[in-house]
């Protein structure tokens, strides 16, 4: 028989089990397979009741983030051979409530995403007939990397502050706020600053940079938080020194 590798998969069926437990599955160690392929093999051939999210299998839909041997990973981009001879432990993303098996509850994240007003805010909209807003490649570069976030939530599972304070709005949401703040077409920065200031958790960020380290898309949420803090502190000083001036 061809070589196999053991997956220790976290199972949790709330109607059956009081708490999560691990179940072992042996899967073929195919050199072209990623962890997600192994999960699909389990679901198709060994146990149809295993639940997890996945869709594009090309690292862009953001569905298949899980803990692989304790690290948040996109399972569609994580090869089995990297863990040879195994075992490979697959768990749901850390710090999120578990719905079932490898599926976590993300409604709280969805409300945090919306809270930062992730859309273009303008005092006045230009009619379509007047064409595009001009934006040079350099202006695009100012926010481009923050726009690459796929909402896979690996950064939340890596962030010690998220682990301690559930109210912390979190790396991806702050990066998204910064994506619009730095867009030359946007005028909503002050509104967003107000939103972010209400979330004290941001000051707990210790800059350990885990969010940036685990990001599969090379977004730099830690950098976004840094930019935000500097701006917030400057605004605060300005309001002390020049209380009559506009922020």
């Amino acid at each position, binding site marked *: 028989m061809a070589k196999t590798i053991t997956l220790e998969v976290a199972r949790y069926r709330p109607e059956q089990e009081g708490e999560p437990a691990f179940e072992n599955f042996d899967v073929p160690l195919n050199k072209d397979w990623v962890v997600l392929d192994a999960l699909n093999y389990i679901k198709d051939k060994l146990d*149809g009741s295993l639940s997890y999210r996945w869709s594009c299998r090309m690292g862009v839909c953001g569905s298949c983030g899980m803990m692989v041997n304790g690290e948040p990973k996109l399972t569609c981009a994580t090869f089995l051979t990297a863990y040879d001879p195994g075992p490979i432990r697959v768990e749901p993303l850390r710090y999120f409530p578990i719905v079932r098996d490898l599926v976590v509850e993300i409604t709280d994240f969805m409300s945090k995403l919306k809270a930062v007003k992730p859309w273009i805010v303008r005092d006045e909209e230009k009619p379509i007939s007047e064409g595009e807003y001009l934006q040079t490649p350099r202006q695009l570069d100012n926010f481009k990397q923050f726009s690459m976030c796929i909402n896979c939530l690996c950064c939340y599972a890596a962030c010690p502050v998220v682990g301690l304070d559930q109210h912390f709005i979190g790396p991806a949401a702050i990066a998204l706020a910064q994506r619009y703040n730095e867009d030359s077409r946007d005028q909503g920065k002050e509104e967003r600053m107000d939103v972010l200031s209400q979330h004290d958790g941001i000051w707990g960020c210790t800059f350990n940079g885990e969010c940036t380290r685990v990001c599969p898309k090379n977004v730099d949420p830690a950098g976004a938080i840094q930019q935000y803090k500097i701006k917030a502190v400057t605004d605060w000083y300005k309001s002390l020194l020049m209380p009559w001036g506009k922020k």
Partner: protein
Amino acid sequence: MDTSAHDVLLVGGGGAGLRAAIAISEFNPKLSVAVVSKVYPMRSHTVSAEGGAAGVIKPNDTLDEHCYDTISGGDWMCDQDAVELFVREAPKELLRLEHWGCPWSREPDGHVAVRPFGGMKNERTWFAADKTGFHMLHTLFQTSLKYPSVRRYDEWFVTKLLIDDGQVRGVVAIELMTGRIQAILAKSVIICTGGCGKVFPFTTNANIKNGDGMSLALRAGAPLKDMEFVQYHPTGLPFTGILITEAARAEGGWLLNKDGYRYLQDYNLGKPEPTPVLRSMELGPRDRLSQAFVKEYEKGRTIETPYGHVVHLDVRHLGEKKINAKIPFVRELCLKYQGIDPVREMIPVRPVVHYMMGGVSTDINAATPIKGLFAAGEAACVSINGANRLGSNSLTELLVFGARAGLHAAQFASEQKEGNTAAILAQAIDEKRRVEDQFLNKTAGRESISTIREEMQKAMEEGAGIYRTHDSLAKAAETIGKLQERFKDIAISDHSHTFNTELTAAFELSYMLDVAEAIIACALNRKESRGSHQRTDFTKRDDEKFLAHSLVYRNADGSTRVEYLPVTITRWPPAERVYGK
């Protein structure tokens, strides 16, 4: 039974659905909009689109040329009134997305940049590097968050359209988190569930692309149109089927056979030049390029790999700087998933099922023949794509016809009074019982979901692939018919009400079997070769008999029937498709 009610309901929350939701909210913010999607909207498959979105914006380009490229690309199967409208609306929709923040790639002076694309005579493809679909989807999703009238049903799975007296009245759906089965009523419904690539074994399509909306519409009595036209994209990575965007060729990539020869020159697609020539060679249309691959294979000039024969896509001569600037995702995908660096190595590629030209039949206003039921995006067939879609028309299509579907569904809903709620609820209760008895609580059953799915996919590839004959199609029809029977004996081991993905997999398989039947029925009846539909037993295009759309219906006894609807010709009479000249 739990019920909720809205004015307009969207099945699907990808590009077309979100564009429609915004259009409805802008038409009248008092209208309540329900977006019912089996995944969180930002997971929708629009996210995977790479190359770009076509729209005339540069002074050297014209609307008529975009029309001509689209119509000739579609081998004269496009409805020309729809194409004219599409081409006219395209730049406005792309600009609207620019105003909403889409990070389009730019010229040095700050204007939106465009790139060439296959089958297009001019450069008119807007792009956001090579993650255009991703950026469009996230821009639409994030923008949709500012409209309070949009109520999302994230991770709700639709099992049925509710129809009363010839009019749609809502859906029955399962909330995945809780297993709750609910009737969601609405005065109009838009189907925007995308395509059905998973009917085939080797596809660029995501796991969620199962033709849900196509099957739901078919079961509700609406016809599907032009289902025989299945697009194979010429350049997918072997094994994974991950798409390598046409932009790789538009930026100057070459297709080479095992001898390092640019083989497209042998297939009436022009002469090889060092830099890209529009409507020529590697920038020919997708159907012709995928067909050329098969011919090369037959001549023994492809390269054998463990995952089928391939040719090479060579972008090395573009250099690292250009690759990183224009097609960074191509490099990322090759590095992460294929273990090769396109800066230094050639990319192995083979044709891969990518897109359905066919879909739920609609008119130019996105309306289906069922009152109150609309469709848009890949799930729909207007038709602007004819027998072969041009790359970069589909992203624009979901904007133009998503917005149009939203507007017309909103207008329709505004004119409606409450329907016969008692009759609808009775229907919903029946459906709830069906879901419970035949799926959720089903204890007996011997057939495996994955086995039937694999056999279906194999039958479709063998019978309804790039080249088809009567015999191959008839055999596939027989297999799918048997699989439909075997499906009734499906085994479901998971009876949980919490995020039961075995339950959804069973429903998805049933949808795909319906769609597979529809594809085969249309392909069997079309005894000609046109665009992506190539019959080795009828090798010529036959305008006399088949300048007409296929409309496939489901009969009361479950069988299918195919009727025909003439193609609308306005200013471009049928002619020969010419490339490379």
